[in-house]
């Protein structure tokens, strides 16, 4: 089952991803680094944030089409897909929170090869944003930022960091050049998964930016609302990335089960292995449907997108974590080394149950929705 033609990423986009990734994802995983030219080429083609409208120089993909592209990248390399998630979230944040002048200023840069990361989490503030300690204050015609962000995906490669901070009893989102005085970016050493995604801690010590770097033109919006809006993109992107992980796991597991023989017949003809394949197939279909459903809400600008996105993220990441473990089980020793597609999937998918809202936070929010909607 494939998406209708109009909702498939164009062949040139897929070919560029395939050409750039080649068989290198395993090497990137073990070295923990994505080559800069790969990121710049994909970014310059607009494919790291393909929903940026054509009027700003972007590919202008729908959510569904971008989702299929995200799944394709996710199936090949979750580190690269993580960069795509961050860049897309930065572009979406500018689109949604910025003024028209800011959209016109930043979006062409984000589809022109510059890289962006989005900084929410802090040592003491993960799911509970009320404890966010990064602060913004106005000094003359500048905004001054102080704080410490942790585990910022893509920050090690970024030219721009979208920083979320408290401002008085409200909040703000600010475009901060990674090279601005007072910004220090240090890689998280040896992350469990998405090892080449450039996760880094970001220190902000008296960082000064012009006031027109403040998205919306002035600080003082609702911090929870700003973060919720930004994260919605991150969540649907992660969800599609996990659908891609499942597609890669299904392909690896079926290929292995067809080819490898034990006890005189292919693994696939052993019923307990066949059940693994059935479960993987089901997981991929369920995750893809949840993602497509959420993207349809995005493309129709339906209020359902909020819950549908949460559901897609929850379904897709939990299915991917379980499915990747199943794939490792089917491949056994053939897949049990770092860098192998299913070994990467196993570590990467686990991280996806934590990032952009842990399983438990998703469950709480889905339960709250069930209580109010039923």
């Amino acid at each position: 089952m494939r998406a209708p033609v109009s909702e498939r990423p164009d062949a040139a986009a897929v070919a560029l991803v395939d050409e750039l990734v080649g068989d290198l994802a395993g090497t990137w995983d073990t070295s923990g680094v994505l080559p800069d030219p790969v990121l710049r080429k994909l970014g310059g083609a607009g494919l790291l944030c393909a929903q940026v409208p054509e009027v700003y120089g972007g590919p202008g993909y729908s959510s569904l089409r971008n989702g299929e592209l995200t799944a394709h990248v996710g199936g090949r390399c979750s580190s690269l897909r993580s960069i795509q998630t961050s860049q897309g979230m930065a572009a979406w944040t500018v689109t949604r929170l910025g003024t028209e002048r800011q959209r016109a200023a930043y979006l062409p840069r984000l589809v022109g090869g510059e890289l962006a990361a989005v900084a929410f989490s802090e040592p003491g503030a993960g799911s509970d944003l009320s404890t966010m300690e990064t602060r913004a204050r106005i000094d003359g015609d500048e905004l001054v930022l102080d704080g410490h962000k942790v585990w910022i995906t893509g920050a090690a490669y970024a030219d721009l960091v979208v920083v979320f901070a408290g401002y008085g009893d409200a909040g703000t989102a600010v475009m901060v050049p990674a090279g601005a005085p007072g910004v220090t970016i240090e890689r998280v050493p040896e992350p469990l998964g998405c090892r080449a995604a450039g996760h880094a801690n970001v220190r902000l010590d008296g960082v000064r930016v012009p006031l027109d770097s403040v998205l919306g033109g002035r600080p003082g919006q609702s911090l929870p609302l700003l973060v919720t809006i930004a994260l919605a993109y991150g969540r649907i992107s992660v969800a599609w990335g996990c659908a891609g992980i499942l597609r890669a796991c299904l392909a690896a597991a079926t290929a292995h089960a067809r080819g490898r023989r034990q006890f005189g017949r292919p693994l696939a003809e052993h019923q307990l292995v066949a059940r693994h394949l059935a479960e993987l197939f089901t997981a991929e279909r369920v995750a893809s449907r949840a993602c497509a459903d959420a993207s349809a809400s995005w493309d129709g600008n339906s209020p359902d997108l909020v819950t549908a996105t949460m559901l897609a993220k929850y379904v897709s990441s939990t299915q991917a974590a379980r499915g990747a473990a199943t794939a490792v089980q089917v491949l056994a020793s053939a897949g049990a080394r770092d860098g192998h597609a299913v070994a990467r999937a196993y570590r990467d998918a686990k991280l996806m149950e934590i990032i952009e809202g842990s399983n438990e936070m998703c469950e709480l929010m889905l339960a709250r929705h069930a209580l109010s909607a039923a």
Partner: protein
Amino acid sequence: MTSASQALEADLTDLLERRTKIPVAPDADLFELGVVSSLFAMELVVHLESTYDIAIVGPDLVMENFRSVQAMAALVRRIQDRVGAGTGV
């Protein structure tokens, strides 16, 4: 109040009462009532956008604009007026 404004407030009141399961007066402080989570607020944003064919972006996303049915209705009218006057952000 115009009938368009009344319809707007009635639509919002209906949505809020369905979701919160409590009566919601047009001037009730929704944050004090504790019935608007950030997710629900985002849903309200998209609901207003898709129902009234407007874009709520940038500086309009202050929580004050979502504090009550009246505040949301006023926000929609402001954006409609701004678009009508050709001075959108």
